[in-house]
């Protein structure tokens, strides 16, 4: 349904993109409130819209809107083909919508591909930069491989279910033991989806790609695309494999634990903030995996909240990071004095990512842990997750410390801070403050978002 709306926006500049996005958000909200859509298209039951999907799509679109508002001018700096970049981002968003609402494996596959292919291009859009080219090639090869695994999984699932259909509800593996084909298909789908959300045994592409891609696109990739992957993940596993949850729960638990552990531990050792954020996004993915582990109502509410909190904070942080000349932690030294607004908002974002109370990050982590506790199996995972959150405080606080308590080192002073002060406009600062306030409001009143789930 949303695909058609996006294609109209093909040749557009920044403002047209923002306008188009606003219209789509309005239409989406209207559907959420009244339950009736602008066009009712018969998709032969291949898409399903319920309040969970629609709230999620709204979150993704609002995040994209904020991303455009904050970083739109930075997209223009990447290269000559500005309108193409915007178009590709819209394609990705269309893919995210499909991935959030799919009802058949066919749509899931197309959605995931629509997400992936523009991303390969965006990663390599900085053509002069060797690192960007390398990242794009690496991402493309690994991504193509995981797509192959996913197709193989779909083929097994299709062959294995008695009705021979692509609809995920009819895949239901039934009670008791799974047939072999379904089990193989399940594991393949698990691998492919874990790759897309960069869970640990399949995370190797993440740091290189996030580091190599232009920072604006990394910001988009680490947030909206990642949460899009998660929504597809949870939809697939809830609707098709929900009844055999005990059989794959341990597998997810192990992946979650490994993701949390390796993501947090390697992030500690990073010097470049951009790379550190890449690892921290792996670690945050570990927390989001808890929702797939638990698969209950609290988990779904938590996932929505987590998606919003994590995306807002990360988009804000990347927007600040882009303004920096120097991506290392030393580059942040003394920011508190020169650019107090930037520093304070960055602190709020970092605190939210850590999960300090009063921020949205805390509430969302709380929901996740609550969901896992309610589930009642594998309780060690909860304790482990809390420990890992404690580790994450170390590297997030390192940046805060650098901003407020360290003096500017002499060699980087001149150009770095001059640049930072020259390029921030008052609207940019105002938007950052707005996001920070949004994060705190969501932290104080999470039901503002989660209540929407029960609206219909």
């Amino acid at each position, binding site marked *: 349904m949303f*695909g058609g709306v996006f294609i109209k926006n093909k040749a557009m500049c920044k403002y047209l993109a923002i306008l188009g996005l606003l219209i789509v958000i309005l239409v989406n909200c209207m559907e959420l409130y009244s339950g009736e859509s602008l066009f009712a298209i018969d998709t*032969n039951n291949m898409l399903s819209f319920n309040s969970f999907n629609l709230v999620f799509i709204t979150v993704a679109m609002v995040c994209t809107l904020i991303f455009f508002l904050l970083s739109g001018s930075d997209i223009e700096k990447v290269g000559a083909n500005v309108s*193409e970049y915007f178009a*590709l981002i819209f*394609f990705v968003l269309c893919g995210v919508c499909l991935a959030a609402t799919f009802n058949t494996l066919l749509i899931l596959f*197309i959605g995931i591909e*629509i997400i992936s292919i523009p991303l390969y291009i965006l990663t390599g*859009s900085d053509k002069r930069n060797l690192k960007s080219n390398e990242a794009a090639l690496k991402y493309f090869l690994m991504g193509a491989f995981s797509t192959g695994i996913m197709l193989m999984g779909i083929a097994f699932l299709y062959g294995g279910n008695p009705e021979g259909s692509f609809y995920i509800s009819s895949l239901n593996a039934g009670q008791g033991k799974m047939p072999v084909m379904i089990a193989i298909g399940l594991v393949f789908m698990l691998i492919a989806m874990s790759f897309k959300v960069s869970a640990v045994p399949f995370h190797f592409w993440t740091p290189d790609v996030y580091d190599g891609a232009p920072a604006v696109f990394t910001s988009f990739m680490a947030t909206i695309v990642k949460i899009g992957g998660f929504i597809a993940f949870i939809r697939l596993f809830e609707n098709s494999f929900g009844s055999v949850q005990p059989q794959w729960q341990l597998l997810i638990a192990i992946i979650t634990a490994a993701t949390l552990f390796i993501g947090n531990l390697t992030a500690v050792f990073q010097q470049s903030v951009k790379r550190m954020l890449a690892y921290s996004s792996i670690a945050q993915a570990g927390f989001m995996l808890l929702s797939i582990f638990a698969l209950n109502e609290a988990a779904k509410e938590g996932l929505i909240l987590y998606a919003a909190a994590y995306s807002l904070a990360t988009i804000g942080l990347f927007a600040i990071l882009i303004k920096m000349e120097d991506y290392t932690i030393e580059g942040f030294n003394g920011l508190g004095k020169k650019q107090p607004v930037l520093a304070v908002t960055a602190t709020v974002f970092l605190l939210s990512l850590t999960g300090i109370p009063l921020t949205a990050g805390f509430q969302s982590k709380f929901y996740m842990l609550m969901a896992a506790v309610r589930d009642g199996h594998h309780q060690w995972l909860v304790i482990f997750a809390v420990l890992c959150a404690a580790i994450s405080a170390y590297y997030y606080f390192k940046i805060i410390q650098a901003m407020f308590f360290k003096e500017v080192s002499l060699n980087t002073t001149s150009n770095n801070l001059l640049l930072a002060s020259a390029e921030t406009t008052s609207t940019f600062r105002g938007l950052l403050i707005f996001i920070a306030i949004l994060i705190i409001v969501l932290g104080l009143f999470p039901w503002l978002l989660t209540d929407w789930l029960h609206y219909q």
Partner: protein
Amino acid sequence: MSITEILFWFLSVLAVGGAMLLVASKNPVHSILYLIITFFAVSGHYILLNAQFLAIVNIIVYAGAIMVLFLFVVMLMNLNADSEPPQKNRLLLYSGTIAGCCLLLVLVAALKQSSTTSQLVEMGGGDAGLIKNLGMALFSDYVFPFEISSVLFLSAMIGAVVISKKEA
């Protein structure tokens, strides 16, 4: 012997002969040309089996796109009979022959048991492979994925242009 049977035997001889020549010829470019003959013959078999769509796709994808790719690679790497290393290892030759014969044996044994051996061609009967049915399914049940995949191709096309365009 009806016309379809004559056609069947003709195509079979063409396919098997092409495949033999493909393996036997020294020049890689000739091998590829023989492979194209084989593909065309197999496509002819598909038509005899009333599977039009498969036949056309086979020609477009295999005989068209993939073969051109093969030719390009061979020509770019400048392979020919001279650059091929002389085959010295006779043991490899023998083991390859034996393995091939084993495969043949297994295939013959398996096909002998199957029930379809008596029917060589299937003209007029069976409509699973007809383009009409495919089109009906594509534009009724699967129209939504069909339309959406156009977005996928559009994004791939735009991406290709973005990647390959010269920066001003």
